[in-house]
């Protein structure tokens, strides 16, 4: 695993319907962190969501790293004690190696997993891989 690098994301807080129907930039990874909140791993225009009260802000507090699925699952087998999603693509979040981690399992054919970690925990995260 390479060290996670700073992600230039956009954080969007809006009504669940507005998030469900948003036209996200092509190819961007969209992490639905809560019913009314999305973290998009790309710059996003203000008007992508239809909610006039939406909050759309750049978010640089996270780092991310893509890991081959086999290596990722071996790590998760050891460090994660909750059930992982089986469908693809899929998003999941929770304690991994005792840290708050967000996971993006890419669509079938792209056998990789994106690990997203709050920047202050990157040192600990890297340590847990060794």
């Amino acid at each position, binding site marked *: 695993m390479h060290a996670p690098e700073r992600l230039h994301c956009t954080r969007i807080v809006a009504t669940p319907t507005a998030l469900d129907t948003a036209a996200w930039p092509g190819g961007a990874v969209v992490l639905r*962190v*809560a*019913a009314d*909140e999305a973290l998009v791993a790309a710059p996003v225009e203000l008007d992508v969501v239809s909610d006039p009260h939406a909050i759309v802000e750049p978010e640089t507090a996270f780092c991310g790293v893509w890991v081959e699925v086999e290596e990722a699952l071996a790590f998760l087998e050891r460090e994660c*004690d*909750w*059930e992982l999603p089986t469908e693809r693509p899929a998003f*999941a*979040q*929770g*304690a991994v190696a005792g840290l*708050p981690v967000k996971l993006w399992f890419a669509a079938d054919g792209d056998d990789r997993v994106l690990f997203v970690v709050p920047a202050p925990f990157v040192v600990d995260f890297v340590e847990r891989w060794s």
Partner: protein
Amino acid sequence: MTIRRLRISCPHCGVRAVEEFVHGEIPTIPEGIVEPEARDLDRAFMHTNAEGVVVERWFHAFGCRRWLTLARDTRTNDIPDNRG
């Protein structure tokens, strides 16, 4: 001794260990306490600390960062409506 178990099912994220959550007490001042000073004292220091079912809040700090409200039996740590 029984091995712990306290798991909370977050409607957004799924079933997780209690350690992913921050606990929040819902303060309750008995209605029988009426004088403002007595109510202030109760608010500042006293606790219902029920040995039985309590309704309380849980903040999913490791996941969606939203609050849930759940009933838990403090004698068993069982969350009847929230089996994981």
